[in-house]
């Protein structure tokens, strides 16, 4: 098992001029319109935009769930999808954490977490459980090992899902509004826990959210997307040093960054709000 920090830096994503057109019942809908974006290895890249603007289509393309109409996406200069290969294969190097959670309800927490390595045949049951217990201890999930997902609070379920993803030493973690349904205080607990886990295993994070405060608090880079069809409208670099904690929320630099991105985001939200844009 390679320890993540020693291997050469990986998880660089290059999105080149990607276009995605859906064709439900013949009415061609452009979800992604000539989007170009570079994400450095180990960078936390936050994707912000109004609901239903096509952010998830971008994530689906990287994860390999959907194809793209044109353009190309590379991971560490390996072609994921592009000309001649419109759709890539889902793989354990790009693990997705879904919006409404996808822990297998019929498996215990431990079986969920060890699912990846066991199914890929990369490690024996004992090895997988050992590594799982170590990662769970780090994330403060010591004694939920034999519970079923339905018995856990949504905050704890979220942390288990992220540990399940990290078990596969992915190059990229794809998060689709993971904390949307949580109340604000649990959400801030989740932010702290995610950052702690990130400091321990450097992994590129592609994080979709509506919440500007969440984007600036967590992100190294915040990409503001236009409303449908989505393409990067403004990229803000967040130069607040790591490690960060909740006091950052009241620092002056944080507020300056909020103002800088607020106007761009508000314009797009206004457009979506007026158009009676449906949720998600």
């Amino acid at each position, binding site marked *: 098992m390679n320890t993540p920090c020693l291997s050469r830096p990986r998880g660089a994503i290059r999105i080149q001029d990607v276009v995605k057109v859906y064709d439900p019942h013949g009415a061609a809908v452009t979800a992604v319109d000539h989007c170009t974006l570079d994400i450095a290895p180990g960078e936390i890249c936050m994707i912000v935009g*109004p*609901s239903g603007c096509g952010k998830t289509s971008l994530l689906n393309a990287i994860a390999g769930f959907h194809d793209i109409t044109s353009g190309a996406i590379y991971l560490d200069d390996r072609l994921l999808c592009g000309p001649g290969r419109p759709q890539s294969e889902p793989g354990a190097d790009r693990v997705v954490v879904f919006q409404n959670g996808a822990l297998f309800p019929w498996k215990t927490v431990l079986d969920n977490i060890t699912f990846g390595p066991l199914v890929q045949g990369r490690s024996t049951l004992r090895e997988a459980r050992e590594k799982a217990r170590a990662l769970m*201890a780090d*994330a*403060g*999930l*010591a*004694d*939920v090992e034999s519970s079923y997902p339905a018995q856990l*609070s949504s*905050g*704890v379920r979220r942390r288990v899902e992220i540990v399940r993803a990290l078990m596969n030493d992915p190059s990229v973690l794809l998060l689709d509004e993971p904390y*949307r*349904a949580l*109340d*604000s*205080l*649990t959400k*801030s*607990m989740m932010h*702290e*826990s995610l950052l*702690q886990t990130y400091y321990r295993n450097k992994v590129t994070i592609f994080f979709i*959210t*509506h*919440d*500007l*405060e*969440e984007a600036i608090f967590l992100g190294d880079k915040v990409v503001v997307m236009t409303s449908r069809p989505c393409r990067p409208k403004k990229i803000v670099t967040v130069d*607040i*040093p790591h490690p*960060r*904690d*909740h*006091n*950052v*929320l*009241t*620092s*002056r*630099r*944080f*507020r300056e960054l*909020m*103002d800088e991105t*607020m106007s761009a*985001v*508000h314009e*797009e*939200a*206004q457009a*979506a*709000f007026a158009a*009676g*844009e*449906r*949720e*998600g």
Partner: protein
Amino acid sequence: MSQTLVELRQVSKFYRDGIGIKQVVRDCTLDIERGKLTVVIGPSGCGKSTLTRLIAGFERPTSGTLMSEGRPITGPHKDRLVLFQESALFPWMTTEQNVLYGPAARGEATPQAMQLAGSLIDRVGLTAFRRKYPTQLSGGMQRRAELARALVNNPKLMILDEPFRGLDAMTKSLMQEYFSGLFQEMQATVLFVTTDIDEAIFLADRLIIMTNAPTRVRKVINVDIPHPRKLADIVENDSANDVKIRALSILHEEAMRSFGGSAKASADFVQAYAARIGRTDSMTPGNPAP
């Protein structure tokens, strides 16, 4: 007329669940002042919603008194209207029928009531959606329709229990600005319950911070910024930020207890977190807050 609309004196509430008896509200004393926007904030699951159900009259207190304008609260009443967390628009009624339900149910569907309903629907920007059913509206639009449905009964007290939870952050901030404007116009008294500190500070004239379960009043902070408020001004406003810092530390302390209490599993996580708060208070990254 006296300054306070609703008074709570040493209100306690116990629930019997399968295992035994659980106390949810512990001798809570609190005043809701007439014409003010009172915001109640506290960790999730601390019993805030029970408090709203007691004030609305859906539940009776185990001990203590709840008075509205000098009379004890015995049951639901049109003067105390509730907006729940998830939308309670009647799915089988169009937007218009929903808004008109209150007056119609009381047999007061007079032409003026119809006219008021029509103007309110326009005011919340749903004119084009009058004939639509709730399932055809987005989350934000359902919220606005519900506000119109409540306002048409011009209640003395409007109780909102985390009404914007679940909306995406942008719609939420727009709804907050929206509500601040409506509040200033309608001169009603509002009790607003939330777990979102920014939402609380943006809306509150009086901010009441509740303790962890069983809940009671921990601190009351007055926020004297006139309505209607704009999100951009609040982010800049120093007194608002000062309230946020004071509220944030109390809330995190209470949240930790609820987080620590309910999730014994993350004991080491809580210690690590508490240690860092202790350490960084002295050296806040970036420039220290004013």
